[in-house]
C-alpha cells in the first residue's frame, strides 16, 4: 500500500495527475469507501486492503469530465469493466492514469459475520502485501481468526485471472484465487425442475427492496437516466407497488447489461438483502458462450458485442425448449 501511496503522491506532485481515485478508510475496519484525493496530505486517509471490493471503473465516467488526468486504482477484474466503458465511449482513456493494483481476493464481511464473529474492532491479515492466509480479528469478545479463503467474495472464487486488461503501470502482486467453476451455480439451477427454479427465484426476488444499490454499483448500468426512471416505457409508475418494474426489474436489468456485463460481481456484493443477482447476468454469459462462442466483455475494446452481432446459422429461439 505504501508503494502505491508514494507513487500516487509523486504523480500528484509532478502534475501528471490532478487527483487520485482510490479508497479511504470508513468508520469501521471493514468498510472503506471510494474517494478522490487531490493532495498529498489528503492521501493520509488512503487505504487499500481486502475490503476494497468496490469497482472504481464506473467513477471514471464522472472523472472523465473533470479537468486533468485522474489516477485510478483498478484491480484486475475492474479493468474489464474499464475496457467495456472505453468500448462504449463512456470513459476517456486519455483522462485516466491506470494503476493496476494487486489483489489476493476481496473479502465479504457478511461471511465473516456468519462465522459468528461480532463486535469487530480491527482486522489483521487483510493487507494486500500480507501473505497471511488467515484473518486475525480483534473483537470486543477477544481475538478470533478465520481462513482468508473462507470469507472471500463469491466472485473471487471464480476469479477471471490476475492479469490487468488495461493499465499504465502495475503496483503490487496479484494472487490466483479461483477455486470454483464460474458456471456451476447456474448449471445447478438449470438442472432444477421449473417449479424448483421458480420457487428459488421467487424467494430470492421477494427480498428485493428496490434500493437500487445494484444499479448504482453496476459499471454497465451507466445510463444517464435508467429506463426505470424515464417515461419512455411507461415503466415507472411509482404509485403502484405491484408494477411492471417491480416484477421485472432484475430480468430487464440483466437483459440490458447482457453482452456488456463483465461479471464483476458488484451487484451481488452491494445488495443489502444478499440476493445473488450475479446469477442472472451469469446465465446470460453462459448462454452467450454456449450459443455464440466464448465472449468476455471487457477483454478488449473493439470486438462486436454478442447482441449487436449475428451469424446466419445462429440457434433458433426454440433451442431453449430443446436443450431440456
Amino acid at each position, binding site marked *: 500500500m505504501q508503494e502505491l501511496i508514494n507513487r500516487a503522491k509523486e504523480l500528484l506532485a509532478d502534475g501528471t495527475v490532478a487527483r487520485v481515485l482510490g479508497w479511504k478508510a470508513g468508520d469501521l475496519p471493514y468498510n472503506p469507501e471510494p474517494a478522490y484525493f487531490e493532495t498529498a496530505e489528503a492521501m493520509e486517509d488512503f487505504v487499500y486492503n481486502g475490503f476494497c471490493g468496490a469497482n472504481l471503473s464506473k467513477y471514471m465516467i464522472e472523472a472523465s469530465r473533470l479537468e486533468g488526468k485522474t489516477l485510478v486504482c483498478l484491480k484486475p477484474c475492474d479493468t474489464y469493466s474499464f475496457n467495456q466503458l472505453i468500448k462504449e465511449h463512456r470513459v476517456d482513456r486519455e483522462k485516466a492514469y491506470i494503476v493496476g493494483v494487486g489483489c489476493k481476493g476481496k473479502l465479504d464481511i457478511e461471511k465473516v459475520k456468519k462465522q459468528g464473529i461480532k463486535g469487530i474492532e480491527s482486522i489483521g491479515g487483510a493487507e494486500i502485501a500480507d501473505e497471511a492466509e488467515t484473518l486475525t480479528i480483534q473483537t470486543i469478545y477477544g481475538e478470533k481468526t478465520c481462513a482468508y479463503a473462507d470469507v472471500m467474495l463469491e466472485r473471487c472464487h471464480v476469479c477471471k485471472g490476475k492479469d490487468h486488461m488495461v493499465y499504465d503501470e502495475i503496483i503490487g502482486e496479484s494472487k490466483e484465487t479461483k477455486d470454483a467453476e464460474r458456471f456451476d451455480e447456474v448449471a445447478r439451477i438449470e438442472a432444477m425442475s421449473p417449479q424448483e427454479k421458480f420457487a428459488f427465484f421467487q424467494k430470492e426476488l421477494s427480498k428485493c427492496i428496490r434500493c437500487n444499490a445494484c444499479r448504482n454499483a453496476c459499471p454497465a448500468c451507466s*445510463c444517464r437516466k435508467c429506463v426505470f426512471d*424515464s*417515461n*419512455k416505457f411507461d415503466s415507472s409508475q411509482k404509485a403502484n407497488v405491484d408494477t411492471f418494474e417491480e416484477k421485472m426489474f432484475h430480468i430487464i436489468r440483466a437483459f440490458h447489461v447482457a453482452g456488456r456485463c463483465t461479471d464483476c460481481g458488484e451487484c451481488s456484493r452491494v445488495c443489502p438483502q444478499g440476493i445473488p443477482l450475479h446469477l442472472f447476468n451469469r446465465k446470460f454469459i453462459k448462454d452467450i458462450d454456449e450459443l455464440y462462442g466464448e465472449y468476455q466483455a471487457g477483454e478488449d475494446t473493439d470486438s462486436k*458485442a454478442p447482441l449487436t452481432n449475428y451469424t446466419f446459422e445462429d440457434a433458433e429461439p426454440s433451442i431453449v425448449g430443446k436443450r431440456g
Partner: protein
Amino acid sequence: MQRIGVFVCHCGSNIAATVDVKKVAEMALMEPGVVHSEDYQYMCSEAGQAKIAAAIHEKGLTGVVVCSCSPRMHETTFRKAAERAGLNPYMVEIANIREHCSWIHKDIEEGTKKAVILMRAAVAKVNLNAPLQAGESRVTKRALVIGGGIAGIQTALDIADAGYEVDIVEKTPSIGGRMSQLDKTFPTLDCSACILTPKMVEASAHEKIKIYTYSEVEKVSGFVGDFMVDIRKKARSVDMDKCTGCGVCQEKCPSKKAPSEFNRGLNTRSAIYTPFAQAIPNVPVIDREACIKFKTGKCGLCSKVCQAGAIDYDQQDEIITEKYGAIVVATGFDTINLDKYDEYAYSQSKDVITSLELERVMNAAGPTHGHLERLSDGKAPKEIVFIQCVGSRCSDDRGKPYCSKICCMYTAKHAMLIRDKYPDVNVTVFYIDVRTPGKNFDEFYRRAVEQYGVNYIKGQVGKVIPQPDGKLLVQGSDLLDNRQILKEADMVVLATAIEPNPDVRKIATMLTASIDTNNFLTEAHAKLRPVESPTAGIFLSGVCQGPKDIPETVAQAGAAAVKAIGLLAKDKLLTNPCTAQSDILLCNGCSTCENVCPYGAITYEDKEVNDHGIRETRRVAVVNNALCQGCGACTVACPSGAMDLQGFSNRQIIAEVDAICR
C-alpha cells in the same frame, strides 16, 4: 388529450357477417379520448371517406381509428383522406378487423369481442400518436443498370432517351448477354444478332449512356435517390483508349486453349480475346489465368504485334465511385448445372447437349460454323431427340420447382429450324406439357408439328443410354400410347432449366433487395408492382425477377425504365417519417445502436446539451432521417431507451399490449 373518431367498416358483409359492427362502434365511445364513432357499409368508398372528413371537421378530431381491412390494403387511402381533411396523416391508425378477425372467425360473439379489443389497441395507440412530417431528400439524376444483356440495354436506352444519364455495369468483356449467344428467336425466327447488335451499338453510341464492361458492382451505400456505388473495373490489360480493335493480337496469341465462354465451352479461344465478333466494346481483354506472359513472364507477343501500343500488362483494377438516384437490376440467368441429372448422360456423351449449346452449334459463328453435327465425331445426325423440363418443375433438390417458361417455345423453334434446314433429320420431342401462352406462340408450335412434322411424344425420358457404336438409346414414356419407348438417336438436346445468375445473391445483399427461395429478386407486389423491388429505388428488369422470354424481357425492361424515370424526374423525395429518433438527454453515446443499424443511418456527434440547466458537450447519436428506414433495431439495442421509433414508439406499443391484455 386526443379527440379520436372511430370508424367501423362493414366491408359489405365481409366484416359485418361475423362482427357486430354497431357494437364495436358503441364500445368505442367508452374508450378514453374517443369522442365520435360510427359504422358504415364501405369506409374506403368516397362516401365513407367523406364521413371521416366530415367528422374531422365537425368534431375537431385529432386522431382517427378505422376498423376495417388490413392496413396493408387501405392505410394509405385513409391517411390521405384524413390529410385532405386537414389532419396529419400519421394520426390515423387501422384496426384490422377483417383479415385478422372476421375472415378467420365464425362465431359472431367471439368475432365481436376480438374486434373490440383490436379497436381498443388502435385507440390506445392513437392516444399516443404524434403528428409526423415526412422529410425530403434529393435525387441524383443518374441511373445505374447492373447487367448488360438485352434487359439492361433496353432499360438503359429508355432511360437515356428520356434525357437522364445511365451507366451500365457488365461483368463480362462485352454487353449483349445471353441473347447474343442465341441463333434465331421465336416466334418470328429473326436472327438474334440482327436485332440485338443495333441495340448494342445504339447503347454504346448514346451520349447519355456510359458502359463499364468487365466491371462489377462492389459496394452500395445510400438509399433511394442517393445511392453511392463502388464499381470495380477489372484490369483488362488493354488500354481502351488506344486499342483500335484490329484483332491482330487475338490471331497471334499462342495460347489458344482456354474454353470459350461465349460458345459454352464447346470450343476454345485465345488468352487475349473478345468474346465474339460484334462485341461492344470491340476491345479485347487478357485472361490472365490463360496468358503465358502472366503465367511465366515470357511471351509478350500481343504487345509486340499491337501497333497501337494498347497492351498494358501492368494495368490494375480500378474502383470508380459514382452516385445514382435509381438502380435497375438486370442480371439475367444461366442454365443449371446438370451434374445431378446424369440419367440423361450429359457428362457421359458429347452428343448430349443443352439447348443453349445447340444455339451455338446452329450459329454460323459457333464451334461448328453453323453445321448441325455431332460434337463427338462431327457426323451429321439423322435422329435428334429433345427432352423437355430437364430440371424444371422438380420438387426435389436436384432441380427447380418452377417452370422455366422459355423451353417449350425454343424447342419448337429448334425442331422447326432443323427440319427446315435438314429435312432428312427426324426430330422427336419428349414433353410433359407444351406451354405456349403468348401471342402467336401456339400457332408457332402447331406449325412445328403440322408443317414440319416434328414428332411430339407426351412423356418424360427415364434414361439416355449411350451405345457402343456411339448412338444414344433414349428410353422414354409415351403416356398416350401407354408404352415405353426405346428410341435410337444421334443427338439428344436437353431443355435445361434456367436459374438466376448466381451473382444476384451478392448483389441483392448489397442492395438490401429481397430475394426468393429460388434466388429470383422479389417484386414489391406480385401483381401491382411487378418491376419494383420492395427496397425503394431498386427496379427489376428481365429474368432476374422470374423466367421470361425476349419480348417479355424487353417489355419489363421498358417498364423498369419508366419507373426509374419517374423517380429521376423528381427533384425531391418525401421520406418515411416513421424513423428512429434519439433523445439527446438520455443518450449515453455508447455506439450500440450504430452497430446494429443496417443503413449506416446513425452517426455520433459531439453536441452541446442542456440537461436541466447543466450545459455540457456530449457524444450523442444522431439519426439521418433520409437513411433510416425505420426497422427499429437500434431502439431495442439502446440500453437507456434514448432511441425510439416514431410511429411505433415504445409507449405506443406498450399501450397496445396493455389494451390487449386488459
